[in-house]
């Protein structure tokens, strides 16, 4: 048999073997691994070569392969680190006279949170804040008050991780509008204008108000190693640009 006819038989054989490689590809995609058809062929021939690779892509690749004698748990996992920022926004406007302590406020993640190249918390995922104090506008034109906190955030795999973020929003009244909170909390809340000063004995103060879309930042508390098979690669997740602040 000539060399050309032998090589053409190999090509034919590859075509016949196509369903197997397609199956493997589908399996890999199902596990969120970034594998192309050419990589499949490469992986079949040189799986050990891939294992020696450096960086996160190789970490993802390792976790998908069932190399005998090497358990996936040995592979270094990407970690969501302590202090990672999570930008959140209020889905709807919140008024201190319309909420009661203990109630939950819907929040939305403004931009995805990445751990290495993995999307730990997807953009637009829903979270909740808890109202810890609510007071409507008071007598003598004194403003209302509202505090809330967010204790946990849900990762893309459904696991809850603790965060720290506490906010205190005060309504306008016969005193200057005050905005306090724990250090490190970014705030961009807009307030109703302060009531004109004067004889405000029978005038109730303004309620504390958070407009819809107001953003704040929470921080992850602690380090959390992520299982790469449960998270999507940032490269395959379309990301929208966040709007102007």
């Amino acid at each position: 048999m000539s060399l050309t006819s032998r090589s053409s038989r190999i090509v034919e054989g590859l075509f016949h073997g196509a369903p197997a490689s397609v199956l493997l590809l589908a399996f890999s995609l199902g596990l969120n691994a970034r594998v192309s058809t050419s990589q499949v062929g490469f992986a079949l021939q040189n799986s050990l070569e891939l294992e020696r690779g450096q960086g996160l892509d190789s970490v993802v690749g390792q976790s998908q392969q069932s190399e005998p004698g090497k358990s996936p748990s040995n592979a270094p996992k990407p970690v969501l680190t302590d202090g990672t920022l999570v930008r959140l926004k209020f889905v709807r406007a919140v008024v201190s006279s319309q909420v009661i302590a203990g109630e939950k406020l819907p929040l939305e993640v403004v931009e995805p949170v990445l751990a290495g190249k993995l999307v730990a918390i997807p953009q637009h995922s829903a979270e909740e804040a808890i109202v810890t104090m609510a007071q409507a506008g008071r007598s003598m034109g004194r403003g209302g008050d509202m505090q809330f906190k967010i204790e946990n955030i849900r990762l893309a795999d459904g696991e809850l991780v603790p965060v720290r973020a506490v906010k205190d929003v005060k309504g306008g009244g016969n005193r200057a509008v005050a905005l306090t909170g724990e250090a490190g909390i970014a705030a961009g809340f807009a307030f109703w204008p302060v009531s004109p000063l004067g004889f405000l004995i029978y005038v109730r103060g303004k309620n504390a108000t958070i407009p819809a879309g107001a953003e704040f930042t929470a921080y992850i508390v602690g380090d959390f190693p992520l299982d790469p098979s449960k998270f999507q690669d940032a490269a395959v997740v379309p990301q929208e640009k966040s709007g102007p602040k």
Partner: protein
Amino acid sequence: MIVVQRMYIVLLMGLTVTHFVRAQETTATPPRSSTAPEGEGKQRSENETRKRLEQLACGPSGVRFSHHSEKGPQALPEQPPDKGLIYVLRTKGLEGATVQVKLAMDGKWVGVNGMANYFYVEVDPGPHYFCVKAALDKPGLLSLVIEKGKTYYLRQNLTMGGTDLDLLDEEKGKQYVAKYSRSSFAEKHKK
């Protein structure tokens, strides 16, 4: 004819299965997303919230207390580790010098203060609803999530415009408690 009927039945069964599968797909639990449907988590109006809070916080009408201020130095309680400690105090002011100001928590009157008085209550952690009332005034309302091991200072604020309940910062609260006398009270029962 029978063959046609059987074929028709088989076709109908096939369609039924397809519809069933489609229905399962459309009624499956949607992913956790912030795009909640209209009406979910509908916001209450200010009046509805006030009514709801009054029901949760204020005690029954007609409850009266006998009251006097304790003289001399008073020992303060230790902070219980598994509960919140709430001091309720009433500052000096021009209004209602002779009026008693009651405080209710979670639908029950728990104490009363005269001028420059305080009392305290130990509270389980979690959300609690407070109502302050003096004479015929509209009650002042406040809702608060109490954390264990923490101390809170609530001020009954009686003004010409109404009665309010303010959450004070710890420093200010401690100063008032150090200066003021503890309230001693008991519920008056109708005979």
